[in-house]
């Protein structure tokens, strides 16, 4: 009867059953964005960060490393929305320009550390035996130590400066990535499609490349966000301690440090804006990572966030 059909759409649907339309790529992602508004916002912030990192300096209203004695220590107001520093530099400009260092640092750690780490982890998990053992034990040993202490030790040996820091953090990312991907690889290893591929005579390398890798992609994306979050935190922590960037270069951590030292109680904007920038960007990466995890593999939900 008509009203039953109205109230029970299933009945009607069963009669005119058709394949659900496969939505287009953008439509799917749009749907994901709508379902995860927080993640979507995070994504926007991350994109903004990358954009600023690449082009930020050109958007700055004034030169972030210039000098302007007449405009020292202005509190936020017209002309300088975020106020000015001891040298009369516009805090907004410095904040925008500060993205660059972190982007670069994150990129280096990613390329030199995390990506090789994923490869290492996949090889480790896939191959097994003594390679696996060696790599995993080393990773455990390295990650057992507080990262900051490791950094300090290396800095004591090789001197301060971003290069040393990049090396140490990249090694950390290498080991971190390798552990993550080993787990993933182990899971994938036993999946059916691999057995299937093997049965068709595919070589191990081909299996790795054509089959395992695409399935690992999501985890790379998730790991990426974690790496950047950690990179921004570490770079700003070190610059805060004075062991990172060279003095004067715009960096959120260094600016925060200068702000605190030159009297954060008198000029709080020098502290608040750099700190907020760091927090916002790290937050965005973390949320993005969480959202990706939810979307791509709900099984991973609830696991601990990036190591501090």
């Amino acid at each position, binding site marked *: 009867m008509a009203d039953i059909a109205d109230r029970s759409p299933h009945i009607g649907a069963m009669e005119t059953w058709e394949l659900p339309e496969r939505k287009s790529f953008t439509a799917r992602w749009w749907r994901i964005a709508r379902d995860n508004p927080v993640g979507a916002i995070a994504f926007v912030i991350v994109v903004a960060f990358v954009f600023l990192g690449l082009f930020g300096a050109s958007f700055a209203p004034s030169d972030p490393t210039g000098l302007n004695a007449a405009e020292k220590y202005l509190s936020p107001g017209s002309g300088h929305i975020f106020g000015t520093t001891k040298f009369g530099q516009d805090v907004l400009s410095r904040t925008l320009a500060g993205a660059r260092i972190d982007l670069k640092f994150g990129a280096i750690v990613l390329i030199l550390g995390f990506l090789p780490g994923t490869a290492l982890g996949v090889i480790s998990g896939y191959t097994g035996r003594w390679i696996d053992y060696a790599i995993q034990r080393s990773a455990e040993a390295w990650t057992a130590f*507080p990262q900051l*202490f490791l950094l300090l030790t290396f800095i004591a040996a*090789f001197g301060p400066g971003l290069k040393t820091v990049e090396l140490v953090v990249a090694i950390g990312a290498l080991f971190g990535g390798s552990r993550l991907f080993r787990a993933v690889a182990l899971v994938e290893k036993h999946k059916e499609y691999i057995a299937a591929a093997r049965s068709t005579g595919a070589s191990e390398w081909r299996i790795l490349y054509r089959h395992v890798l695409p399935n690992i992609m999501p985890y790379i994306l998730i790991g990426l966000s974690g790496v950047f979050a950690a990179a921004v935190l570490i770079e700003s*922590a070190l610059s*805060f301690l004075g062991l990172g960037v060279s003095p004067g270069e715009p960096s959120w951590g260094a600016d925060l440090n200068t702000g605190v030292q030159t009297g*954060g109680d*008198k000029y709080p904007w020098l502290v608040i804006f750099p700190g907020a920038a*760091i927090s916002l960007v790290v937050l965005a990466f973390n949320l993005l990572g969480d959202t990706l995890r939810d979307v791509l593999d709900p099984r991973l939900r609830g696991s601990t*966030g990036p190591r501090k």
Partner: protein
Amino acid sequence: MMRYTLRRLSFLPIIVFAVSILVFCLLRVLPTEDIADVLGGQNASQQQKEQIREEFGLKRPIFPVSAVGSAPFIELHRHSQYGDWLLDAVRGDFGKTYTSGKSVREEFQRGFPASFEIVSLSLAFSVIFGVTFGVISAMYRNRLIDYVVRIFAVLGTSIPEFFLLSLLIIIPSYFWRYSMPVGGYVPVYEDPWTNLRLFVPAALVIGIGGSSSLMRLVRTTMLEVLRSDYVRTASAKGLPQHTVIITHALKNAGTPIATAVGTAFIAVFGGSVIAEKILSIHGVGLFFFFSTQSRDLPVIQFLAVYTAAVVVVINLLVDLSYAWIDPRVKYS
């Protein structure tokens, strides 16, 4: 279990030994600059530089064993930098700092109480806060409190500790002209009020800020556990909820929580450098930081070994706690 503990403890010296060799290599073998170059640099004659090297003990070979080109292919040295260091170290003498010439151990002991206080207080707050809110969040899943806690947790991993601590100092000063007693570490038995005034707010900030991982983990584990059979049985038996939670659920969730607490400790321990710097507390963390800046090798040497020891002991404690929490875990 005793034997397990002892066996694990016996690894401690080996690990520490390995770390000390690695650090020695890192600090002395690799860098090309020499303290004599740096100190005596300008206009110092070769002879004066050699004298400086002699003073700092750098003229000895680095390791007790070194390779030589011809038979017997190895050479043993009675005095070597590492050999002498090791022999002294096992007796508790870790040499003198380059900066002040004082005994490394003394300087460490001077700074240790302050560090110990900040780390243990922070960890305590972290655990209390993390476990409590993790449990609450799990119990009231998807209600408002849960969302608030989860937001809090994400914020905690994102907002850097140094920012929070800086705000902790700045905000009271800016608004209420209240300044923390920074710079003066006073032991708690001497002046409890000043001591607590300095440490408690900072430990709260660090502890709560760092509790996110723990909170999330507790929440996840509790969620799993709360749905399990034995918990439902306990509830069905009519046990009061808090007994259910504490006696049954937490204990079963204990193992991953213990691991997370161990991780939290390492995190707080590592973060002590930043905390001490901002608060001007002269503890071990700041000692490490200054020594890094001055490339004070004996100190770094010692602190690396100390860190390794701490890491191993913490890991051991965490493993042992498994046995205590979960009777099914047995160590032979």
